[in-house]
């Protein structure tokens, strides 16, 4: 099975483990991720204003490339996924916006035809948890893991449609498939502070600490995320339990984790 793949700029740089293990684990699970050529940064956040066109062109080009390759698109980073998926939704549902965008496109029109999977959805909907269980060589038995969804994977649900936005299970189900024990806590779908870290670090620290405390109180030994900014914010707020990418966890269980510290 082959998919077009958009890693995004952070995954080529500060979040290499999120990218490298996504590919390695996909191979183990029988899926090839073919990187889109010459992609550009999605911009990190989706601007909801309808008259913002130029900032969304890079996402449309990624979607269009996948269409040209006749493949569905896979993303891993929560932020890239949110931006690309919201852009695709706007291309499908806002004709005025789509026509403005299409004036920038050299060849054929694009109107939101590409199907997008987040890596978690790829596992749930295409690969299946049973296949994952079969491939686990190093079960994470006994480990208490807290899934941290944050905002970007789930909201707005009218567009993201990944899971129940208030009571998601997609990460917990994966944790179970890897042999570990998911820890459910109330702040798992609340914000870490996001980009305000840049201007108001104290606000980000406050928000992140609420999440960390909530996870620890529920007994978490590890927090797992798909978002480089969530990981950064939690770590910079003095989190004293490890915060890992979901692909690292997966790689550990599938026996393809090695030391990539560079």
């Amino acid at each position, binding site marked *: 099975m082959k998919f077009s793949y958009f890693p*995004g*700029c*952070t995954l080529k*740089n*500060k*979040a290499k483990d999120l990218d490298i293990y996504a590919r390695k684990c996909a191979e183990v699970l029988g899926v090839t991720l073919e990187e889109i050529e010459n992609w550009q*940064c999605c*911009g*990190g*956040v989706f*601007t*909801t*204003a*309808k*008259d*913002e066109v130029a*900032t969304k062109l890079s996402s449309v080009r990624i979607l269009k490339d996948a269409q040209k390759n006749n493949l569905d698109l896979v993303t891993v*980073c929560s*932020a890239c996924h949110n931006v690309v998926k919201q852009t695709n939704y706007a291309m499908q549902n806002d004709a005025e916006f789509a026509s403005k965008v299409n004036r920038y496109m050299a060849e054929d029109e694009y109107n939101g035809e590409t199907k997008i999977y987040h890596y978690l959805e790829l596992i749930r909907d295409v690969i299946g948890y049973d296949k994952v269980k079969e491939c686990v060589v190093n079960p994470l038995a006994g480990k208490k893991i807290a899934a941290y969804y944050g*905002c970007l994977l*789930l*909201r*707005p*649900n009218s567009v993201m449609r990944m899971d129940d*936005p*208030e009571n998601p299970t997609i990460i917990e189900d994966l944790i179970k498939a890897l042999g570990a024990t998911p820890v459910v806590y109330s702040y798992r779908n*609340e*914000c870490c*502070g*996001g*980009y*305000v*870290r*840049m*201007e*108001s670090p104290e*606000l980000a620290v406050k*928000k992140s600490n609420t999440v960390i405390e909530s996870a620890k109180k529920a007994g978490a030994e590890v927090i797992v995320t798909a*978002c*480089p*900014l969530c*990981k*950064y914010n939690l*770590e*910079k707020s003095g989190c004293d339990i490890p915060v890992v990418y979901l692909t690292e966890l997966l790689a550990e269980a599938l026996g393809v984790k090695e030391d990539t510290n560079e």
Partner: protein
Amino acid sequence: MSNSKKYLREEIIRISGVNPKKCMRCGKCSATCPAYDEMEYHPHQFVYMVENGNIEPLLESESLYRCLTCFACVERCPRSVEPAKLVEAVRLAAVRKQGNNRMTANDVPELIDDETPQQLIVSAFRKYTK
């Protein structure tokens, strides 16, 4: 309402795609907002102030830069008003004014460290700069 107020109101409604008239003033958006304590004007106030054309105070407010774009208010509003989209539209109206960029490339080195993900820098630029 003066013409210029009316014009600004129409503009914010148009680019946000939000219809503030749908709001039933339940306050749920503000109750769930993780930036509530840091905001001078809260999400539900954005909604009725835009509806009344009282946008100038919002344009000047630091609240524009405290919203985390977490979409909690969007998800939990029982009337699908989507307050975050109004906050974003007003913020854009503010930073699009000449000389109103909140951040420049020169500010960045001071604000980052060795682990700062690229995602943070580009996101902040999308939010604070035009």
